[in-house]
């Protein structure tokens, strides 16, 4: 087994999606690592910003919440929530959002609200926050998941954030003019979505994990015909992640 953690592989795996000029919407946790790593390694001209309104902070220390003071320091602009969400949906910007979720379905729709009955839940989560908004507006959404069968489900207990909705053209028919689920990055693999059906398929499995293990841990059938092994994180990628992105090891 290679010498890196799940979080490291996930941060690198997701970070590789970011291109120069992208405006990257980051949440807490791994998404903070992925965004920062992306900017330091692959896309120095990407801009990281937060739903709280902090745009392009220095990030000498890694924030532990999107309202962390570290997202306000050395920014281009400190604004507010309304400004931030209007950036996510701005037609002249290519915005990529990192989200986390408790459940995902085959069309990349997300649940961050509740497990069980809505009014008498088994487990209540934090709720949408900005997730529903960025899922509605961003050019693309990358979701981080722990890869477990109970999280990759046929039917969400609650659809908080729209991915490809019911597949095909259904997202566009809702009235959402762009965006959709770009990828789901888990501790085992990277899932992507078919261009036409918008169904999730296995794109890359991490070194050391089998396709079977992924199928076993996914609660709906997935196409594995396009699967290939992911490039492991390079020494340089890991160095930057460990020494520059999160030297205090708060998230890693």
């Amino acid at each position, binding site marked *: 087994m290679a010498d890196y953690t799940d979080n490291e592989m996930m941060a690198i795996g997701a970070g590789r999606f970011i291109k120069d000029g992208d405006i990257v919407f980051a949440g807490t946790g791994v998404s903070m690592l992925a965004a920062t790593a992306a900017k330091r390694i692959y896309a120095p001209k990407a801009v990281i910003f937060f739903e709280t309104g902090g745009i392009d902070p220095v990030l000498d220390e890694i924030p532990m919440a999107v309202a962390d003071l570290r997202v306000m320091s050395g920014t281009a602009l400190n604004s507010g929530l309304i400004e931030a969400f209007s950036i996510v949906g701005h037609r002249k910007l290519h915005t990529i959002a990192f989200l986390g979720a408790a459940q995902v379905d085959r069309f990349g729709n997300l649940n961050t*609200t509740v497990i069980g009955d*809505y009014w008498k839940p088994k487990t*209540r989560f934090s709720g949408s926050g*900005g997730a529903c908004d960025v899922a509605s507006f961003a050019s693309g959404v990358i979701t981080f998941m722990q890869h477990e069968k109970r999280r990759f489900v046929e039917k969400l207990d609650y659809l908080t954030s729209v991915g490809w909705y019911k597949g095909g053209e259904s997202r566009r028919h809702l009235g*959402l003019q762009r965006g959709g689920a770009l990828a789901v990055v888990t501790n085992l693999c990277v899932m992507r979505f078919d261009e036409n059906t918008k169904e999730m398929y296995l794109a890359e499995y991490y070194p050391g994990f089998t396709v079977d293990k992924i199928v076993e841990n996914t609660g709906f059938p997935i196409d594995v015909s396009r699967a290939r092994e992911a490039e492991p994180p390079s020494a340089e990628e890991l160095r930057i992640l460990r020494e520059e992105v999160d030297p205090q090891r708060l998230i890693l």
Partner: protein
Amino acid sequence: MSSYPEIADKVMGLDEAVKRFIRDGSQIAIGGFTVTRNPMAIIYEIIRQRIKDIHLVCHSHGQGLDVLIGAGCVKRLEIAYGGNGRYAPTCIRFKKAVQRSEIEFEDYSNYQMSLRFLAGSLSIPFIPTKSGLGSDLLNYEGFPKEIRGRGKVASKKFSLLQNPFNGEDDKVVLLPALNPDVALVHAQYVGEDGTVRMKGLTFADIEQAKAADIVIVTCEEIVPRSFIRLDPDQNSLPPFFVDAIVRVPYGAHPTACYTFYDYDPKHLNLYKKVAGDDSLFRQYLDEWVYGVSSHEEYIEKIGAAQLMKIKANPVLGYAVGLDRK
């Protein structure tokens, strides 16, 4: 009594601010976001005065929300997110209260709630958005039918409209404006003229304050008029929106206040430990809220050593190298 003659009628203590402006059943908006700039000092005072049946309207809130719910002050909640960053991915007392059906709750998203405050601040009755189309936010109403349209509860959670400017099938979600009874905001500075200046991110605080009937501002410091008026581009709220001003240094503790102090990992970890257990949580309230008679006493309990640890670098805004585990 006050040393600030221009705002003498507005400057008061926490106790008076709560007594004069907050009632059982008030609809209250709190400023800040998750771990930052929650108006904690006045929230503690609300708990001490045993205010009941609060209708809380939040976007993403953390510590302030959770302790108010945990203390049993909240009956009704409109919310996008209850979480406290790494210290509580889902706010613990909030989670319990929903799971035990102890509060009425209605889910929105952050942008939706922010837009509702914006609409309230502009005195417009509703505001359109496309956020929420296809989401269960539009399929589940949290509030029971019988409270709809009463007091400050909107007659509908939302309304769908065909965009009248577009020939195509183009639906938009109309969200009802929010005009809370009271907005509670913690700011870095209030001028001796009553002008408010917030530093760092302002979240939806300004919209909340403008949307509310009554605005209570707690602040780190009251500063000379000559300072606050020298560069008015930087100010956040004019004096006439502010009804009460309370000077409370460390008034956001254990949440952070940009350029003054960071969040307090020690206290948030303590909270995390006690919040999961009903009995420990009652002891926490007894010790840290009911058991202290003032915010000064609370700060004394935190202790100077801890205050030094969380002290922000005033230029960078946060506590560099703080152990945040």
